[in-house]
């Protein structure tokens, strides 16, 4: 009886490990950062898109107002797809749209906005992509719904019908 204890424990141990790893194979191996909602927005200084004036974000984001911060670029194809949804949201009276123009060429960005329209109330420039990192973004487009300087909803990738319905529901 004494001799059999160790092989049984070892077998059970390896079976548990096998099950753990086998179940792990089913998980996606592409990591997506947690949608870190209920986090304070970062403060940053950035140049306004239409001028060389540098503005602090603390002067833009006020309490008791909904803001939608959208990271976009003219070279990003999904940004083109979501642009119509942003224009739809720009009609909402209690929502201000802030754009962060990510690593873009001014000429192409102007062309993009002239062609598709400008839904943003304010646009910041982020030529080096450092401000986007401050927001925890790792690509374009990414969108953050903000109230009282807190992120209340984060969308990685382009906005779609469902996500704008959710946003409209929140800001009602």
């Amino acid at each position, binding site marked *: 009886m004494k001799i059999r204890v*160790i092989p049984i424990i070892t077998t059970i141990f390896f079976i548990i490990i096998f099950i753990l790893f086998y179940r792990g194979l089913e998980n996606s191996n592409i990591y997506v*950062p947690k949608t870190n909602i209920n986090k304070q927005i970062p403060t940053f200084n950035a140049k306004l898109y239409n001028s060389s004036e540098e503005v602090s974000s603390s002067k833009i984001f006020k309490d008791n107002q909904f803001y939608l911060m959208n990271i976009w670029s003219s070279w990003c194809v999904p940004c083109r797809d979501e642009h119509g949804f942003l224009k739809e949201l720009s009609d909402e009276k209690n929502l201000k749209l802030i754009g962060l123009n990510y690593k873009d060429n001014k000429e192409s960005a102007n062309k993009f906005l002239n062609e598709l329209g400008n839904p943003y109330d304010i646009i910041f420039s982020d030529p080096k992509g450092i401000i986007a990192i401050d927001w925890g973004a790792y690509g374009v487009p990414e969108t953050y719904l903000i109230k009282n300087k807190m992120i209340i909803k984060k969308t990685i990738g382009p906005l779609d019908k469902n996500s704008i319905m959710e946003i409209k529901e929140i800001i009602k």
Partner: protein
Amino acid sequence: MKIFKLLTLFLFLFSFCSSYAEQEKLEQKITKNLRCLVCQGQSVHDSDTEFANSVKLLVKKKLNEGLTEKKIYDYLKDKYGEWILFDPKFNKKTYFLWLLPILLFVIGGLLIFKLFIIRKN
């Protein structure tokens, strides 16, 4: 006097170059330990994506601001989670990861000890 001036200039340039090289070494060390979130098999140092290039610039900026290596890791961990580090720290989420090899080593050792040494005696 001229020689003295030249020597001072040489020493100044030498110290400037060596501190620059030190910082570059540290930048490389940090970016090699950061995972690129776009092409996830590669480190930020090896990757050439927009994200990785921005992180490289950010690391340089933070070092120039006087942040330590640990503070830069903490900053990025806060933004993207533990996954961004190739060398995850020992905490309750990584107990299994760190302790499993040791556990297997100990169990294996005990088995060998039991099978070969005790039986031999």
